[in-house]
């Protein structure tokens, strides 16, 4: 009867992970006339392909920004005082900001640097117009900036344990063997942190890839990324309502995220071996 305790967990997974995935798969492969591949074939349109391309690009760029920015901040925290105010401040701020997404985040940006936002208007009054070439906040570039706002804090949270695992003694050992800073990073800390860094990068990638609410609140036109395209196929009132296509698109997203998560798991194992 040992397995009894796992029922809530597996029940949860079945209800919120397996069941929705199953619904998506069924929706993608079954049309009104039974089994069909027409939904998948329907994805072969330039605007759908470009939505996926944009999603991949947005996720990659925002993950890179988040990973690099977050790693630097995490390094500052890790090398500082373990019980200091800076560490506590940064960690609690990151804990909050990593979850600060969706409509509230979009609103914060619109209110600050939207075309009538107070920062933008103030700068404009002082001769700086960063929207001279168009309002990029509502484009892919804007999403990259906005996403960084939750990607960097998330990176700090997931990367800090790896940095904390690095002992000062290892650096001392490097130096006593005649190594310099470059040697330490190239042969000791670098290889040690790389799996954790790449793992975190992939996590950020998946995080951005699946985000919907922030983009939906910010961008009302054109469904430029995959998650917005799915929403459009589900809710259009002008007769472009194609739930089958939406399911097929969701399936592609599931597959892409699954690939990313498999890579992440493999790397995660390697990280664990190093730190054991």
């Amino acid at each position, binding site marked *: 009867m040992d397995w009894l305790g796992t029922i809530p967990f597996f029940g949860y997974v079945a209800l919120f992970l397996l069941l929705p995935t199953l619904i998506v798969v069924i929706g993608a492969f079954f049309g009104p006339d039974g089994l069909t591949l027409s939904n998948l074939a329907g994805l072969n*349109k330039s605007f759908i392909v*470009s939505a996926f391309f944009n999603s991949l690009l947005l996720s990659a760029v925002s993950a890179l920004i988040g990973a690099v920015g977050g790693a630097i901040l995490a390094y500052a925290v890790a090398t500082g005082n373990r019980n200091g105010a800076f560490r506590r401040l940064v960690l609690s701020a990151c804990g909050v900001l990593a979850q600060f997404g969706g409509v509230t985040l979009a609103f914060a940006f619109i209110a600050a640097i939207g075309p009538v936002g107070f920062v933008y208007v103030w700068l404009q009054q002082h001769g700086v117009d960063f929207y001279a070439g168009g309002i990029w906040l509502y484009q892919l570039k804007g999403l990259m900036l906005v996403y960084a706002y939750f990607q960097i804090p998330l990176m700090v949270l997931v990367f800090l344990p790896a940095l904390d695992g690095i002992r000062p003694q290892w650096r001392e050992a490097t130096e006593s063997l005649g190594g310099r800073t470059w040697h330490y990073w190239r042969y000791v800390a670098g290889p040690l942190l790389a799996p954790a860094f790449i793992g975190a990068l992939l996590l950020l990638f998946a995080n951005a890839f699946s985000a919907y609410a922030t983009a939906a609140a910010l961008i009302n*036109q054109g469904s430029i990324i995959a998650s917005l*395209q799915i929403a459009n196929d589900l809710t259009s009132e*002008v*007769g472009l309502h194609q739930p089958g296509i939406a399911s097929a698109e969701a399936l592609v997203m599931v597959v892409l995220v699954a690939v990313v998560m498999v890579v992440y798991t493999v790397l995660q194992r390697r990280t664990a071996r190093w730190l054991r």
Partner: protein
Amino acid sequence: MVDARLRRPDFLTRRSLGLLAGTVMLLAACGPTNNSGSSTTSAASAQSAADVGGMSALESAAKKEGKLNVIALPPDWANYGAIISGFTAKYGIPIDSANPNGSSQDEVNAVAQLAGTSRAPDVLDIGMAVALANTDKFAAYKVSTWNDILDSQKEPTGLWYQDYGGYMSIGYDSSKVPAITSLQDLLGSGFKGRVALNGDPTKANAALNGVMMASLANGGSLDDISKGVDFFHQLKQNGNFVPVQATTATVKNGTTPVVFDWDYLSAAHGTDVPSWKVFVPSSAILGGYYAQAINKKAPHPAAARLWEEYLYSDEGQNLWLKGLARPVRMAAMQKSGKIDSGAAAKLPPVNGTPVFLSADQATKAKDYLASHWAQAIG
């Protein structure tokens, strides 16, 4: 299921029967012959007021039913609050107004779900897409002012007939942007980050019509929306397009100082923004109307028909006009001088002949937008 009509007492009392029969025969003799040819057509199958013996017979039959069910009529939309109380005051028939904020789809859903009950909606006020998809649920009826409605705005047998609407327009805050006299103005440098649509045209009907209007103004046709997509692409290239859905809030806070929207919705922004102006380009007058229809299984068939007669009377049409909606008989009433000229003066001026998207043309436009819109403004 029992036919709704059998459960209701016949509205023709014995006393008035002779008189009515005489009227019907008289009308039948001088008007177009009705299909039944009988003098006792029940209200549920009447295709005109004459079929039941004229307006006064229809009125007394409706009074006998004693009630009217309407649905999805917000009191502040197109002045429906005043129209509902006006009808009740005139005929003494109370109106049961269900789900005032419902959508057109909600209305036809209620017709199906409440069929056979006394709560089913008698009359519907619906968008054209929904009207065309559900004609099997409607009863054919021609109001006495039928001939004032343009042929392009009604179903020939009277299953639906457009009621009120307006034209696609460009609303703008004249304190923020220069005056607009043509669509080409919008491409100028004075409109950087200013121009918005009311939604995504692949999702929202008003936005689709906005792009279509831009197409008409740029050499496209009702069959070709591509010129409109090109126009918005150019707007986007010039940095003038704001990809934000225009709402009362975005107009008020200035995010969207130039908006493509129906003129009657746009004109309402004048309450928040006194410098708000509405422009309808004379080269592209694209109409969008709602339609009336009577539920085939209406629990109060005579009241339903009387309601339509009221809506399409001069009085009903002027009430819509006061709500900034253009009633369908507006042109005819302007000719006859029956129009409320004070209310008409508040509408944005329009010079020219309006055109309307057919169902096929709308589908064609949707398909083109689905594959080209994201690229054009992405």
